[in-house]
């Protein structure tokens, strides 16, 4: 730093020295002049003095500038003495002391730098010479001629002494000037030092041997060196690896400092990589400017750390390279003429680069988009905005391809657009897949939607528009359009779920109706909404699917009707099977009635017998009524569900009426143990049918057995109503899985349809009840569990 200060203030020092040299030369010339004036004629003295001024001044100036300054001083001092003792004509008489004590006074002034010391020494020498001169003047050796010259000797002494004093004061004054100038230099140096310290660029001064003369803190910081840095060391002693932009090593002779030394030309903006052991590779921008200081050559180097800039440039270059290698890139001028295309552009379009350059993009226009589309595009980019969208282009071979395109205007420093750059990605496959997906959605009748709650941006798939019977549009009102179509009865539920999704991020599923043609036509849809949340758990978007279930619902309805029909048919089948027995059951009491009526006249006179017959008729009629009622109920169509809380015991009794004739016929003992107050929520007729099926099956299963019985048990366990239909038979292992499947039967061919148990299971499932084979009994036991009446669910 000190050296730099020194070097930088060198010019001021030189000015100061110049001034000194001038004073010295003037003084010596004056001495010559005075001496010659005394000895020679005045005109000649003037001539010699002028010669001294003319020749000595430049000589002294030259010598003062050189590094032999001190030698020059000694040389001049000796010259002065030689002048005194050899040149002075009064030398041999020792009387012209004033001619040599003046130079004697001057010599210390010249020889020594210390101001006071040389001033005092000069005064002492002057005093000594004055004293010696007084002695000489007082002697007889002084020729009269000379003593009688212009001035009295006392005045001469005064004159020379005073001249000496004035001279000393004058010399000191010059020193003061020099000092003040140096102070100025110091100030300037301090400022310079502050600037250098505050510089972000590193600064380094090298001599021609590449030794580091000086450096600033920024240099040490950039290179991660301690405060001392490289000062006093050889630059090339550092074992740091240098490299060019492209990574090739920097030869020592190519270093900007060496080149600057070699060529004596400034080396500016040289970029160099430097591998530091602790920081890795850093990039520097170096300026190396040669200069000379006191005849020595130096180079001042500034180093700017451009690592971040370089890395950013490198990254940008890599990004651009990556884009260029993966994307389809093209540049156009302001009129839209293509100025650059990359390989990918040529590849996808099928055109050679030469065919594209100078043409506009109409060469690949597919005609897929309207003129308004491109007009809008151009308006956007001309206004300085980027445009992004999907464009369908046509390749040279006529094949269409879709590209996801971003077009950005490239601007200069003044913000003026200079060209347009388009980056495209081939999305033909994606488009194809989207088409397939759309087709799949169309087949599955599933639309999809996305609703950005933050930006209010909404997107629907094609199928979603189709389901809602709307024309595709880009609108942030899609949600409201959809909501307006929701059936009034379903709207509160939809609003509630959507609000919860928005506020609490809850996903939702809702089956609802949307209406068309002023509510004349209805579609059934299932909407599934999935909420995306930000890290704070706030809902930011809702996406999901909307499935058109209309056909499914219609089919379900048809299926239910068919199912009801099948149940009804199964009942009719049961009725058919039982009809003989039922007929018997009816014909018997009918026979009693008819027989008794036919005999009533005969017992007119026998009131007791008459009453007996009447009572018999009444009982028989009641029996018929009961059977017919049961039949009517049993055969009722179940195309609609009538659920009510029913007493299980009553239902069982009805079922027994329908089956007891069968049990009787096959001599199967039928036992019923049902707790009286069991209540279930059900369609009584359907449950009766279940029981009739089970009991009838049980009778069939055991009728050929030696021990044949059927038991019906009903009880309550843990708020569950349990109904068991047991028989004396056994079911082999492994039939449980098939038992409730349609068309599975254990009966001999022709005796069973195999539909009974599957219908039983279906009916019970509709009631939220279950039926299983209870294997904890040795004999066959079907166990039905009904939910408690209050908890029964309508699952139909």
């Amino acid at each position, binding site marked *: 730093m000190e050296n730099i200060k020194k070097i930088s203030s060198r010019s001021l020092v030189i000015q100061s020295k110049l001034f000194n040299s001038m004073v010295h030369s003037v003084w010596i010339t004056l001495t010559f002049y005075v001496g010659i004036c005394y000895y020679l004629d005045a005109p000649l003295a003037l001539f010699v003095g002028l010669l001294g001024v003319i020749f000595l001044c430049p000589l002294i100036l030259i010598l003062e500038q050189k590094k032999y300054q001190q030698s020059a001083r000694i040389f001049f001092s000796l010259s002065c003495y030689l002048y005194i003792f050899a040149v002075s004509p009064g030398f041999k008489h020792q009387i012209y002391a004033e001619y040599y004590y003046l130079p004697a006074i001057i010599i210390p002034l010249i020889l020594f730098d210390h101001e006071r010391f040389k001033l005092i020494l000069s005064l002492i020498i002057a005093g000594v010479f004055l004293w010696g001169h007084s002695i000489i003047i007082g002697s007889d050796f002084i020729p009269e001629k000379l003593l009688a010259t212009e001035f009295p000797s006392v005045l001469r002494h005064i004159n020379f002494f005073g001249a000496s004093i004035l001279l000393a004061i004058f010399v000191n004054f010059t020193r003061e000037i020099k000092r003040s100038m140096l102070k100025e230099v110091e100030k300037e140096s301090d400022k310079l030092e502050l600037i250098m310290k505050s510089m972000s660029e590193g600064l380094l001064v090298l001599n021609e041997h590449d030794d580091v003369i000086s450096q600033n803190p920024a240099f040490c910081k950039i290179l991660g060196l301690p405060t001392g840095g490289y000062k006093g060391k050889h630059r090339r002693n550092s074992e740091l690896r240098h490299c060019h932009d492209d990574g090739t090593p920097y030869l020592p002779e190519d270093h900007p400092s060496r080149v600057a030394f070699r060529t004596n030309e400034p080396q500016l903006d040289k970029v160099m990589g430097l591998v530091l052991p602790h920081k890795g590779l850093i990039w520097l921008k170096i300026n190396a400017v040669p200069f000379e200081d006191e005849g020595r050559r130096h180079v001042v180097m500034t180093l700017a750390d451009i690592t971040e800039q370089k890395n950013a440039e490198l990254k940008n270059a890599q990004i651009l390279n990556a884009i260029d290698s993966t994307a389809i890139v093209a540049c156009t001028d302001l009129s839209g003429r293509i100025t650059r295309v990359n390989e990918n552009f040529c590849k996808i379009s099928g055109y050679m680069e030469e065919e594209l350059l100078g043409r506009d993009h109409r060469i690949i226009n597919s005609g897929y988009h309207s003129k308004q589309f491109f007009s809008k595009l151009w308006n956007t980019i001309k206004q300085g905005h980027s445009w992004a969208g999907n464009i369908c282009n046509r390749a040279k071979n006529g094949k269409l391809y879709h590209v996801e395109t971003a077009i950005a205007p490239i601007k200069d420093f003044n913000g003026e657009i200079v060209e347009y750059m388009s980056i495209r990605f081939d999305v033909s496959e994606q488009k194809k897949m989207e088409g397939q997906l759309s087709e799949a959605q169309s087949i599955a009748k599933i639309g999809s939607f996305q609703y950005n709650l933050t930006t209010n941006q909404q997107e629907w798939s094609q199928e979603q528009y189709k389901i809602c019977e709307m024309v595709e549009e880009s609108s942030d009102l899609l949600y409201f359009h959809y909501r307006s179509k929701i059936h009034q009865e379903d709207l509160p539920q939809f609003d509630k779920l959507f609000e919860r999704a928005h506020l609490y991020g809850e996903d939702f599923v809702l089956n609802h109706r949307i209406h068309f043609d002023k509510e004349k036509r209805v579609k059934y849809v299932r909407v599934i909404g999935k909420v995306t949340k930000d890290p704070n758990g706030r809902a930011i978007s809702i996406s999901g699917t909307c499935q058109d279930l209309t056909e499914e619902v219609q089919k379900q309805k048809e299926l239910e009707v068919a199912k009801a029909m099948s149940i009804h048919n199964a009942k009719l089948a049961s009725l058919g099977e039982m009809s*003989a027995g039922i007929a018997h059951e009816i*014909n*018997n009491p009918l026979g*009693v009635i*008819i*027989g008794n009526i036919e005999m009533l006249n005969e017992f007119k006179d026998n009131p007791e017998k008459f009453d007996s017959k009447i009572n018999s008729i009444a009982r028989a009629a009641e029996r018929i009524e009961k059977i017919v009622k049961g039949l009517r109920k049993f055969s009722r169509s179940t195309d609609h569900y009538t659920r009510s809380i029913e007493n299980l015991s009553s239902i069982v009794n009805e079922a027994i009426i329908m089956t007891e004739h069968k049990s009787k016929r*096959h001599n199967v003992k039928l036992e019923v143990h049902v707790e009286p107050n069991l209540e279930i929520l059900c369609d009584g007729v359907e449950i009766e049918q279940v029981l009739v099926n089970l009991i009838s099956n049980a009778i069939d299963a055991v009728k050929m057995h030696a021990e044949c019985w059927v038991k019906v048990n009903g009880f309550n366990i843990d708020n569950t109503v349990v109904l068991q239909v047991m028989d004396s038979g056994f079911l082999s292992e492994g039939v449980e899985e098939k038992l409730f499947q349609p068309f599975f039967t254990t009966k001999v061919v022709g005796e069973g349809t195999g539909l009974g148990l599957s219908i039983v299971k279906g009916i019970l499932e509709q009631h939220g009840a279950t039926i299983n084979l209870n294997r904890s009994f040795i004999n066959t036991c079907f166990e039905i569990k009904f939910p408690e009446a209050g908890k029964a669910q309508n699952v139909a």
Partner: protein
Amino acid sequence: MSLKVYYLDDEVDLLEVFYDAHNSKDIDIKIFNRPDDFIKATKLERPDLVFIDYRLPGTNGDEVALKLDPEIQKILVTGELNVDPKVNFLMKLDKPLRRDKVRSILSSFLKP
């Protein structure tokens, strides 16, 4: 001698009506509601004519008829819609039995 007629039916009321309607000095009606009793009775005293109900507890008219003397004249009585008896019954009468019809049948069996 009166005509011995047995009637087997599990329906007691029907038996009573049959008895009241047709029992007379010429026709001796005996009624049974259990097949075993009926079969035993036929073996003890051979009836001239039996009426057998088809649907009986633990058995049917066919099976009962097989256990009877083949010489006994048998009429099947049934309330069933379709019965195809395997035994050679003299006839099949559908329930409800009409008094006149039964009477005419019985009359035809009465000895002149």
